[in-house]
């Protein structure tokens, strides 16, 4: 008691510690709470079962978040553009499938909870082998080597049956009965919570890595590798370590994939999966640590939800990507961060009017574009599948001229107004920023 009186600051400091923890990691804790609660919001109480679609989608989001973050360890943090990142995802998945089969057959014992670690080690081993080759180069040459490695491994996956199982892939069974907590991991909700646990561990480790000397040197080599050399570090070694660790986390993501789907095929190492990592990371934002998570959530949402409605969802993803590269190189996270100063100066309300003026024609132009794309894809792909084109209950005949004209009109008029309003928006934005700067000076 007397000690507390003697040090009146002791308790408040501790309280401030907790407060700053919630303040600094508030968004992360909120995201964690949402991921834990979300499956129960879609719980079907009348039949006492989880919505399979939602749980599958959330599992996918979680593992893709790890995958995208591991990709950003190379792209955002080390400035290494890779076109073959899926290699470590897929090889981690294959390793996990073989480990699961081996545990099931009794060759050795490993708790189910630690199986993702095996995938991570698989990813790490292959990342060390391929990274030794690839990280001797940087920039475009590095990108080309990773492209070559990606194509090479994909071709091998189709060719060699012992490890990759050829075209059929390797199937496995996650119910191996070695859980530390007595869980079966047969229902997908149990696997979901295992995935969330490993996602939390991986995200925390990757976040910590950005604060180590290695993480800082990776940034330095990205920004100016010659100066980094003068500090006394070997940039190619920094690249090598960063690449290997990135492969480790990609392997964990692949392991979560193998646990969820219980089959790993060559698709998981192929170019489309590597492109997926690139799209998620870039659309989410390479500049902020959490950016790739946003990208993963958005892309998986598009993938599982929009793909039910439309054959051409990849066109929209591609267009979103191009728009991001052209107008917002910081991705979604970059756009959000740009609003930070205005939010803190409590002037966000000033932008409401300009936002409405720029978003209305934007939505119209997008609607027109979507209508045109859907009409077009219906004529070739949809018609072959024997579907009829319906929009809010009204059947539209893609052979007639009217819907095409409406689509073109929306796109052209919306686009022109958007172009004009975009310039107006930029002026309003700059005016608000000037105001904030002036207020700061005063």
């Amino acid at each position: 008691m007397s000690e507390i009186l003697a040090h009146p600051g002791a308790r408040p400091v501790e309280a401030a510690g907790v407060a700053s923890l919630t303040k600094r990691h508030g968004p992360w804790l909120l995201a964690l709470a949402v991921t834990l609660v979300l499956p129960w919001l879609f719980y079907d109480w009348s039949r006492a079962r989880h919505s399979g679609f939602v749980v599958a989608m959330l599992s996918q989001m979680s593992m893709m978040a790890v995958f995208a973050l591991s990709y950003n360890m190379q792209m955002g943090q080390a400035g290494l553009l890779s076109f073959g990142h899926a290699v470590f995802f897929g090889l981690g998945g294959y390793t996990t499938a073989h480990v699961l089969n081996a545990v099931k057959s009794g060759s050795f014992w490993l708790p189910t909870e630690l199986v993702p670690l095996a995938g991570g080690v698989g990813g790490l081993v292959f990342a060390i082998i391929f990274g030794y080759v690839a990280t001797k180069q940087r920039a475009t040459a590095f990108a080309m080597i990773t492209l070559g490695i990606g194509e090479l491994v994909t071709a091998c996956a189709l060719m060699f049956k012992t490890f990759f199982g050829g075209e059929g892939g390797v199937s496995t069974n996650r119910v191996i009965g070695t859980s530390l907590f007595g869980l079966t991991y047969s229902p997908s909700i149990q696997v979901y919570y295992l995935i969330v646990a490993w996602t939390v561990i991986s995200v925390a480790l990757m976040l910590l890595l950005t604060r180590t000397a290695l993480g800082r040197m990776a940034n330095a080599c990205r920004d100016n590798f010659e100066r980094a050399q003068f500090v006394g570090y070997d940039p190619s070694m920094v690249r090598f370590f960063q690449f290997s660790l990135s492969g480790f986390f990609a392997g964990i993501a692949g392991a979560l994939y193998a646990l969820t789907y219980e089959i790993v095929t060559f698709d998981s190492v192929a170019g489309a999966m590597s492109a997926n990592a690139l799209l998620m990371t870039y659309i989410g934002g390479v500049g902020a640590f959490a950016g790739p998570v946003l990208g993963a959530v958005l892309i998986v949402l598009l993938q599982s939800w929009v793909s039910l409605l439309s054959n051409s969802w990849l066109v929209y993803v591609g267009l979103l990507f191009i728009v991001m590269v052209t107008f917002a190189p910081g991705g979604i996270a970059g756009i959000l961060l740009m609003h930070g100063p205005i939010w803190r100066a409590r002037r966000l309300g000033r932008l409401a009017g300009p936002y409405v003026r720029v978003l209305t024609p934007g939505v119209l132009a997008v609607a027109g574009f979507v209508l045109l794309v859907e009409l077009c894809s219906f004529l070739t792909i949809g018609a072959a599948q024997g579907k009829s084109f319906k929009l809010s209950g009204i059947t539209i005949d893609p052979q007639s001229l009217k819907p095409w004209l409406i689509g073109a009109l929306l796109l052209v008029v919306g686009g022109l107004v958007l172009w004009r309003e975009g310039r107006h928006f930029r002026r309003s934005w700059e005016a608000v920023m000037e105001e904030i700067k002036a207020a700061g000076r005063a």
Partner: protein
Amino acid sequence: MELLLVSLLNGLVYGMLLFMLASGLTLIFSMMGVLNFAHASIYMLGAYFAYDISRHIGFWPALVVAPVLCGVLGALIEMYGLRRVHKNGHIAELLFTFGLAFIIEKAVQMIWGLLPVPYRVPALLDRTLFHIYGTNFPAYRGFMLLVSALMFLAIWLMLTRTRMGLVIQAALTHPEMVGALGHNVPRVFTTVFAGGCALAGLAGVIGGNYLVTEPSMAFSMGPIVFVVVVFGGLGSLAGCFIASLIMGYVQTFAVVLEYSPADALAAFGIKVTEATPLSEFLTIPLPRIGALLPFVMLILILLFKPRGLMGTRDT
């Protein structure tokens, strides 16, 4: 012997087709520093344009119109896309072309469908040119050789005999210096990009009916063209030409030689059975490894000679 001769001719045809694609890409890559992922997509568009035009008007107009369309498209991409992204750096430009390749593939699927289209060789050329050792050599392959030889000659004359060509040649090795000397570098960029795309379109027109015209043709051709460009070296058309021919021959001979490493070992008296370690690797026949060879070559050259065969700068 007959196998050798026929394969030599086929490899030449394929190599020249690759050169038609790779020459434009080399010029673009050397001058602008952009590895254009959409280059093979333009090649695919060339084939589809030619298919549509030849269906309505005929093959011969398509031979001219489709490359021109591709060239115009290329100019538009450069002026309204790449130039805008340029300020965000090379990676952004590369990603832009990557996204473009993605969209073009999906757009082609939407417009022409998922299945291959029946783009055929024109009737005039659909016959045998000559026989070698009982094997037919189709007239169309001869025509392809003729077109690519003419294109080679045209590029060479353009680059060495015209003012524009000299500026382009200078810009290949010293892009900043050319700008400092007062030449309109953006216009040179647009011209080269449009020209490269027109060549890719031409390759599509004459390659689309030789190979198959389908939505995945860009993604199967793209990496190979990259390998050729990197293998040949930055800033060197001659290196690009040699690399194209090497790649053409590697791919052609890998398909016709039905041997596996096990056969080579058999020559030394070692017999490979199921029980031999690595038997799976050893019994794979060469035609199946053929698809891997370009990427092995790519990785090896980037490791040991990052400048490529005749490159003047690092990639």
